[in-house]
């Protein structure tokens, strides 16, 4: 019997109770808010939820937004809570849009979402979907590929996305805690960015399929037709086609991960898709938080105007950053110019 109603509490009820500074690297841990502007149809609301789960654990999973909240309200709350990034979803008649912004005054990247699939859709399309809840206990790794040569806006994109996720220190990181990976792949011809979210799984290599399944599933095998246990163990079963071609995907583990992957044995890395799938196109880059001068406009003139204020928000991140630049090329001259401005 609720006699006293909770009136007018703060509209934000965050779940995040983590430290704000990473103890290992000494950097500030970036935190994010994912919310929407305007009324969204139900599938986009699911997408918002999926994005929140993706950003776990450093995000507010149950962020409550009211219709009357403006950007200013979010900004006011973000300051004391140490929130560094906003991911804003909105919808117009043409398409849904995703804006990635750095608080408090950072630049805003506007992406147009050409296509998206929800996590439930992806799970339905798979034969054996896998999503244990421990996946979301640690931050994902991020892989950026194809962003290539020195277009300013692309560089900005890479830097922005690297900084959204906390950096990892390879000397102390536990491989068992790297369980998710976010991939952003840029396609030069179509100028579209593919956004994928995978879960990482390690499987011991060199073990026959039967034994591996037996150990993993703890199900007693059917030995009716066999004469001897040795028949079961030594029977040459055919390997699945995917096992043959991942010589490149095998890893020597430094420590034991789980029960089956032992140290200093080869294990294969297997990725399975979870989470939302999006096809994004970078439309606009603005200097301020959804305001300010337009630095890049897909449909307008290209204005390569770099204010000092802009670049100072990109402190060079630690070397042992969790982000891996695969096939990412920075022109030295551009880089010098960038860095000079940040002084």
């Amino acid at each position, binding site marked *: 019997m609720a006699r006293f109603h909770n009136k007018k509490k703060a509209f934000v009820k965050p779940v995040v109770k983590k430290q704000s500074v990473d103890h290992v690297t000494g950097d500030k841990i970036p935190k994010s808010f994912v919310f929407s502007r305007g009324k969204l149809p139900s599938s986009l609301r699911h997408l918002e939820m999926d994005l929140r789960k993706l950003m776990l654990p450093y995000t507010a999973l149950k962020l409550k937004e009211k219709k009357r909240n403006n950007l200013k309200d979010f900004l006011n709350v973000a300051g004391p809570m140490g929130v560094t990034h906003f991911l804003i979803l909105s919808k117009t008649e043409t398409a849904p849009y995703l804006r990635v912004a750095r608080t408090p005054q950072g630049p805003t990247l506007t992406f147009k979402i050409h296509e998206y699939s929800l996590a439930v859709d992806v799970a339905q399309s798979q034969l054996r979907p896998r999503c244990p809840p421990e996946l979301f206990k640690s931050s994902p790794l991020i*892989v950026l590929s194809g962003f290539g*040569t020195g277009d300013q806006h692309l560089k900005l994109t890479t830097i922005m996305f690297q900084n959204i996720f906390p950096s990892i220190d390879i000397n102390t990181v536990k491989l068992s805690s790297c369980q998710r990976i976010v991939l952003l792949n840029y396609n030069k011809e179509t100028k579209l960015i593919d956004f994928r979210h995978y879960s990482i799984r390690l499987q011991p290599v060199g073990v026959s399929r039967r034994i591996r399944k037996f150990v993993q599933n703890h199900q007693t095998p059917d030995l009716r037709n066999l004469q001897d246990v040795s028949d079961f163990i030594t029977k040459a079963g055919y390997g699945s086609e995917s096992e043959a071609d991942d010589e490149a995907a095998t890893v*020597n583990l430094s420590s034991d991960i789980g029960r089956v992957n032992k140290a200093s044995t080869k294990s294969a890395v297997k990725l399975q898709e979870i989470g939302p799938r999006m096809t994004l196109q970078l439309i606009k880059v603005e200097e301020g938080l959804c305001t300010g001068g337009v630095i890049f406009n897909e449909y307008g003139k290209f204005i390569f105007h770099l204010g000092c204020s802009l670049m100072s928000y990109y402190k060079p991140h630690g*070397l042992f950053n969790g982000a891996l630049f695969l096939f990412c090329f920075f022109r030295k001259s551009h880089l010098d110019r960038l860095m000079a401005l940040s002084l």
Partner: protein
Amino acid sequence: MDTAIHLPEKIEGIKKRKSRRSKDRKERKRVKIFSGTGGKVKIDKKMKKLFRKRAREYNSDDDDDEANPEVGEANTRPLEEFSVGNSSEEEGIDGSDPDAVEEKGDSEDEGDRTQPGITKFTEGCRAFRVAFMKITKTNVSDNSLGPVLSAQKRLIAKKLAEEEAEWKSKGDAKKEKHLVGEKGHVKPANFLDSREKFLISVATKGVVKLFNAVNKAQNAQKGLNPSRFKDAKALGKRQKEAFFSELRKPSQAVDPPAKGDDGPAWAPLRDSYMLTSSKLKDWDKMPETTVGNDMDGIPLDSSSDSSSDDD
């Protein structure tokens, strides 16, 4: 004698009626109180007769002959009324005949005496009856669309069609709204097409690289105890070397999509990666400073100096 006999009856009757009427009067009084209007005071029929009688007596010059028949009439009238009163109680149509007779009788008497505002009891009774009968005879039809004619069916059909059209347009509007909301939402295919496979392979390569690097770095430091200061320094050095050597290796194994760039493909390998100031460009040629366990991102090796000129 007659009068004597009749009088008590009359009195009784009057008393009866009075008691009954008094109730009505009280009710009417109550009604009057509530409504608060100064309406016309309804005078009891009996009282009317009494008033008339008194008026006659007062006005008349009093011939006995005149008086008697008048008295007689006066007496007969209450009799008639009494009977009429009874008949009206019974709601009888039986009273119609005596009514008619009395009417004539009354009209003769009352011809010279007009008393406005007081309707005859008998006339009032009849009028009410007639009106009531008229009302109960008429019969309102249930059909709001009109009388049941041949066009009735067409009317109904038209109305139904209208309503259906309305619902349909609403349903269409809803469907359209829903479609607009779902724009861009795509269900993924059941199988992995080539694009997805390519993306998975890219991600896998990244993960493998990282894991191998971590492996190397963490294996190298197995022997050393990080709490010892001396070891800690050596630890730091070894980590950096191992890390960079590891990362430099697989860059060739994986073929980068065609970029016309010289120098190491991987950004952190380049000499100028995150070089905050050009002063520090050749830091390792500067006088030696202690390298602590500081992971601040100052690039190390001089071996990559040669490849510093790209672009």
